[in-house]
């Protein structure tokens, strides 16, 4: 089928404002969903689910969250890991205190607490911009990790200092803990990502998303047409941290099972930021593509030498991985700040006009 907008007349504003106005896009999304829910769990083995797809999806959620703040609102943040930690520790404390509470509610509550913490650390954004703001969010990152390390109440005085996700069920099926199968855990994470990606898409095409972008593009003009800079930036911090909080809770409960604060250190913040940059600032799809790229590339690099019969030491592969990431990030920042998502969009535009070059 050709990728064409022609002939698809929109007869109402509602149709024109639909989430996927072009029919081919709707088909594409439907196809991906069918594959993700139907085909993948049937075909993928334990390794692919546990080591590739689950972390990819969790990072995609965090990347969407950071993109709302950095890509859509223009507020650079290095606190992602810290806000994820808030989500993980909140969910842990809540479910150990109230074991009967539905696990989905636990995750949502973790997001809300992370949102509140994000809001507090977003307060300096009224006065501070750009790199300086990044430094204050860096302070949030270090403070939060320090706090969860230091105050034993957060890890229930466990002598090892780790927190472990207890087994919990959802509609009678084990979704966390050692007995939950990889396929079930994958489906849980997938559902969270699909739902919250749609929510994010709705937010950025609504009033709140436009005010975020207005602050990003021209804050003086935004204020003069009636946008309050503080509430707008704080709403972005809150929503963004909500996403990161849920991603952090999923990281503990559905992916790692047991963590120390190390799982949420500054490297996580940088990794998510790289995903957003490579995937595309100001794009929900880009966040997902970026997360896929950064989680899958290392696996590819570790396995590729074997495929062609080469032996590569693990530490060397790790170094090469860093060099490649660094190269990509510099290339994207200079050549295409809107990332892989923009390349995808350009491809689509070409396709829409094909076979006419102009």
């Amino acid at each position, binding site marked *: 089928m050709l990728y064409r907008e022609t002939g698809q007349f929109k007869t109402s504003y509602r149709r024109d404002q639909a989430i996927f106005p072009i029919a081919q896009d709707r088909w594409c999304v439907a196809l991906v969903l069918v594959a993700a829910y139907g085909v993948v769990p049937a075909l993928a083995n334990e390794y692919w689910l546990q080591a590739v797809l689950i972390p990819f999806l969790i990072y995609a959620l965090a990347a969407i969250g950071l993109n709302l703040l950095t890509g859509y609102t223009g507020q650079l943040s290095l606190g992602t890991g810290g806000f994820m930690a808030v989500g993980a520790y909140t969910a842990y404390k809540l479910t150990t205190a109230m074991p009967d509470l539905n696990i989905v509610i636990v995750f949502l509550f973790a997001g809300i607490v992370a949102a509140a913490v994000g809001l507090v650390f977003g307060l300096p954004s009224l006065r501070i911009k750009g790199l300086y703001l990044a430094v204050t969010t860096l302070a949030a990152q270090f403070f939060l990790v320090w706090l969860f390390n230091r105050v034993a109440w957060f890890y229930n005085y466990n002598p090892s200092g780790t927190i472990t996700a207890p087994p919990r069920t959802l509609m009678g099926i084990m979704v966390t803990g050692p007995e939950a199968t990889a396929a079930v855990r994958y489906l849980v994470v997938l559902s969270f990502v699909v739902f919250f990606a749609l929510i994010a898409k709705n937010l950025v095409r609504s009033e*709140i998303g436009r005010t975020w*972008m207005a602050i990003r593009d021209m804050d003086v003009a935004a204020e003069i047409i009636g946008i309050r800079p503080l509430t707008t930036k704080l709403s972005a911090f809150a929503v963004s941290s909500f996403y990161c909080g849920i991603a952090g809770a999923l990281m503990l409960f559905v992916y790692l099972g047991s963590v120390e604060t190390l799982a949420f250190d500054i490297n996580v913040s940088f990794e998510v930021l790289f995903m957003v940059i490579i995937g595309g600032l100001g794009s929900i799809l880009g966040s997902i593509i970026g997360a896929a790229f950064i989680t899958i590339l290392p696996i590819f690099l570790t396995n590729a030498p074997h495929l062609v019969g080469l032996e590569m030491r693990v530490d060397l592969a790790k170094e090469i991985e860093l060099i490649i990431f660094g190269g990509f990030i510099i290339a994207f920042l200079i050549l295409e700040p809107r990332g892989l998502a923009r390349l995808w969009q350009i491809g689509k535009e070409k396709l829409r006009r094909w076979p006419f070059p102009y």
Partner: protein
Amino acid sequence: MGSRESLLSVEGVSLSFGAVQALVDVSIEVYGGEILAIIGPNGAGKTSLLNVINGVYRPQQGRLVFMGQARPRNLRPYHVARQGIARTFQNVALFKGMSTLDNLMTGRVLHMRSGLLSQALYWGRALREEEAQRAYVERVINFLEIEAIRKTPVGRLPYGLQKRVELGRALAAEPRLLLLDEPMAGMNVEEKEDMCRFILDIRDEFDITCVLIEHDMGVVMDISDRIVVLDYGRKIADGSPDEVRANPDVIDAYLGVAHA
């Protein structure tokens, strides 16, 4: 023209930046339904005056009265917007990453009431509001004849069209008072004619009072009901185009250049 009722009074406003006196004891009346032009040489303080009206700068002295109400000193620009004052900028200040349509929709921010949850689900009140506001924005788009660039990211538009979109964004706010800072700067004759027509129609069809800063004397004399002349931060003349043209101070300070 229009009722002679004062919409905005600027009373004895003085503004300085360190040693630079941008405005010195300036008093101006803006009457409802008129087109008032502010002219003056470069650096005369015209843009600074608009910034004071918008609440971007706080004057050291003087006060503003809008629709009969004295304005509190600590009013922020977004409060001023709420009172019904909109603005375009000397250097285009559009939201570059957004389409024409989204820029205009953003202009309607003060007419939107739906909550976060409703927007997150794009359902109920948020959906109804998007449609209702879109209808108003489409009216502005038709009026400004920018239908063809509705979905174009504004960063890709030529300068003349960007100015027009910026006017649209201010118009979408449905203000009572519209401040235009050199809306025709850098335009060719044809574009200027279009812009003049729009400004006149905005006053007549949308019933919006306009204050505009403009350097092109022909345009100013043609479309304005009244002219205020600033020079070195002081008001040196205030009256109808004919009065201002005949004012010896103005001829010295400003028009004199053309006469010499």
